[in-house]
């Protein structure tokens, strides 16, 4: 058994930021456990730029953004164990992990930060008819083959899902000489940033087909084509709109799922919408001393926000280790009328800092208001020119406003069109 003050599970942007923040707050014995061979997480394969505009005020590529934190870590005595997989987090915060050199590791930690990130939704969940041939992969897998291994995952590509990873891969494959035939999107709007639609699709005349899905895959060994179809208001394929598109590759960019197997095994309750643990304003889960941040908590659009959130978790963990973290009566938060969820799910009434409530909306709104209410009283109202499901939003609650709320009351956030 090795003793640490803080064990951080995951060495991507979330884990690194949380560890660095805790270190800055004077926590001495910190270990980061990362399953890949390098730190940086998914950023290592995200070689496009667009990272860091908020946090560093400049436009960086994924590896550059990660590189800044890796460099900061190198100058500390934070222990980094790569190629190390965490197998279990016990109720006493003992972390069990394995790697080739240490074998089976038992780490006793005062606090644990969960920063495992998320994974891509696979094909199975979609029930696309057809054979199980090769050539069907998630956009992230394709990205790894191109950017890390240096191999072409396909020549004629159809992409299902217009999330940012799908859009980025459309451009990436085109630049490497592949023909990207189209991007199909089930919803009537794209889940990706406008900038990516313009610069990844429009620049290369790649059609974006909205309200369209892939209903079948064809081919014996390698994929030979897909059948696409328009969908109706209930997202069901419309008969008679089928169209055959020859292609050797189908890339899926159909959503991200927080990687919470460890959290579930540790008995943490997950939010039904975010699929992440329920947390307080310092991102402490319902298990004492266990914090969560980054995409394991909620899927973010921008890594800059992951960093910000993870610093909050790192600060919270530091406070916890030092015995300074407030943990008492709470108010809970709830999204209604167009607001799908709120993070954090609860706030300590006597919290020592202002709290940002993060949320996503369920549809596209223009010129709408975000209304925050408690006990029938409007606490805050904020006008927004545009709200869309693809962009995470937040409202800021002052700590004295929170202090004035009755214990165990509910703060609701809603959209007023």
């Amino acid at each position, binding site marked *: 058994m090795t003793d640490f003050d803080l064990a951080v599970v995951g060495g991507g942007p979330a884990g690194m930021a949380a560890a660095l923040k805790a270190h800055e707050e004077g926590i001495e014995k910190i270990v980061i456990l990362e*399953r890949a061979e390098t730190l940086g997480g998914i950023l290592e394969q995200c070689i496009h730029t667009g990272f860091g505009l908020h946090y560093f005020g400049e436009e960086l590529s994924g590896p550059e953004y990660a590189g800044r934190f890796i460099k900061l870590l190198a100058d500390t005595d934070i222990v980094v164990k790569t*190629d190390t*997989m965490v*197998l279990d987090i016990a109720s006493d915060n003992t972390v*069990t992990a*394995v*790697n*080739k*050199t*240490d*074998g*089976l590791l*038992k780490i006793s930690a005062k606090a644990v930060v969960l920063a495992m990130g998320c*994974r*891509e939704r*696979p*094909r*199975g*969940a979609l*029930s696309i*008819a*057809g*054979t*199980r*041939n*090769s*050539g069907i*992969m*998630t956009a*992230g*897998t394709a990205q*790894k*083959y*191109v950017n890390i*291994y*240096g*191999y*072409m*995952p*396909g*020549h004629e590509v159809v992409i299902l899902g217009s999330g940012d990873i799908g859009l980025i891969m459309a451009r990436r494959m085109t630049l*490497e000489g592949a023909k990207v035939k189209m991007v199909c999107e089930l919803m009537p709007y794209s889940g990706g940033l406008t900038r990516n639609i313009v610069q990844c699709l429009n620049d290369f005349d790649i059609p974006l087909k909205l309200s369209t899905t892939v*209903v*079948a895959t*064809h081919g*014996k*060994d*390698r994929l030979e084509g897909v059948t696409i179809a328009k969908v109706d208001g209930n997202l069901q*394929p419309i008969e008679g709109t089928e169209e055959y598109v020859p292609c050797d590759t189908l890339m899926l960019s159909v959503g991200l799922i927080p990687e919470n*197997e460890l959290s579930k095994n540790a008995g943490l309750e997950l939010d039904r919408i975010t699929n992440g643990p329920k947390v307080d304003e310092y991102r402490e889960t319902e298990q004492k001393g266990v914090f969560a941040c980054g995409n394991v908590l909620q899927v973010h659009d921008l890594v800059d926000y992951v960093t910000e959130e993870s610093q909050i978790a790192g600060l919270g963990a530091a406070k916890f280790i030092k015995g300074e973290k407030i943990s008492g009566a709470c108010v809970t938060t709830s999204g209604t009328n167009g607001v799908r969820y709120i993070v954090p799910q609860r706030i300590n009434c006597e919290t020592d800092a202002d709290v940002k409530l993060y949320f996503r909306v369920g549809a596209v709104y223009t010129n709408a208001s975000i209304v925050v209410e408690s006990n029938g009283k409007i606490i805050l109202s904020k006008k927004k020119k545009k709200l869309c499901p693809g962009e995470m939003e937040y409202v800021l609650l002052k700590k004295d406003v929170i202090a004035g709320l009755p214990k165990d009351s509910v703060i609701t956030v809603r959209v007023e069109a």
Partner: protein
Amino acid sequence: MFGRKKGEIMTYDVAIVGAGVVGGLIARELSRFNISVALLEKCNDMAMGTTKANSAIVHGGYDAQPGTLKAKLNVEGTALMPKVCEKLSVPFKNNGSLVVAFSESEMEHVKVLYDRGIKNGVPGLSVIDRDELRRIEPNISESAVGALLCESAGIVCPYELTIAAVENAVVNGVEFIRNCRVQSIEQNGDYTLKTTAGDIKAKFIINAAGNYSDKLASMVGDDSIDLVPRKGEYYLLDKSVGGLAVHTIFQCPNEMGKGILVTPTVDGNLLIGPTAKNIDDKGDTTTTSEGLREIVEKALKSVPTVSPRNAITSFAGVRAHPVCDDFIIGWCEKSEHFLNVAGIESPGLSASPAIALYVREILSEKLNLTEKEHYSDVRKAPVRFRHMNDVERAELIKKNPAYGRIVCRCETVTEGEIIDAIRAPAGARDVDGVKRRTRAGMGRCQGGFCGSKVVEILSRELAVPMNEVTKFGGESKIIYERTK
């Protein structure tokens, strides 16, 4: 072996055509004797046909009509199965099965099945009422009125059984030849099989070619085998809902088969299906939107809480339904040393250990079978990191650090286990082969994380570039040329 040279002529005492569960277990049984045996497989791995995609059930044996080969071999096979699985280190679970009735008239049918089962000699049969049913199967539909309980039924993983059987056979001297599709057969005293892996000579041929056994028989002039390819589609659901069924839950059978079942798998997932549709193309393993919809609709009748939202994958298999409605096992009338083992539809998996013994018996009529001096019917258990405790894990990694590297996090599969699977006798040659042997990529992310790592390990172990690694042989390439 792998990479056989074209034109090389070998003469075997017996060539078994088809490395499904039937061919695999026959090969294992024959490996006990002083004869040379080749097991020919048209695909890049064993268990690639009907064996790969079926319900994975060890049936009690109450379905088949008394007096049929199906009835006899099912009951015998099911009795043999636990021991065979133990020897081959293959998980088998005796979870029992239920045929659920939703009306009084169906209850009558349940009683018919009970009587038939008793005639067939099925142990552990009883007819249970609504209350007992609900007690032993808590998630069963409210509308179920009773059931036939068969305590002797169980579940097994058909491809693991086949892989283990072939491994065991190979260790005992059987030659496993992949990518070996028989194109024609010449008879000049011995048989010469013209295959995609070159000519192969054999004194006896055992036809275990599954859906293609009719075609193979016709190569020696036997057109008597009449098969109808029948497709079945399935959903595999996540382990988080694996507990929705305790027993294998059938509905009352109809003329197309045993209907849609809901069953746990030996690995803890939930399997629902199959549909039953006669098709023209034997190779058609496509799933269809209608089929997938039908599975869910019918499965809901048994267990109202199943949901396709928990699906991690869907697949389809094709079984060879014999028009004569019974297994076709025996000497071919047109060719003296050609033994047909055809039309092995359900309960073929259950019967397979008994089929192997039965075929050995028939073969011994014409071929002298003397037991080898050195033979082992035990296959060493593969390392299963996920089933170990901390002490065992620590010990294992100390011995070989490759077990300290988790490649597939959903199923907790280590690099060491993947290397073992590739280096095993008749080991994995492609990504799906690794998946079937280790479960890497079988979990909820379906290889999203580990897929490229498995390709990397295969490339290293087989000493081929990454872009020559396939998903399941043939043209199923995963990646193409270098980007630069």
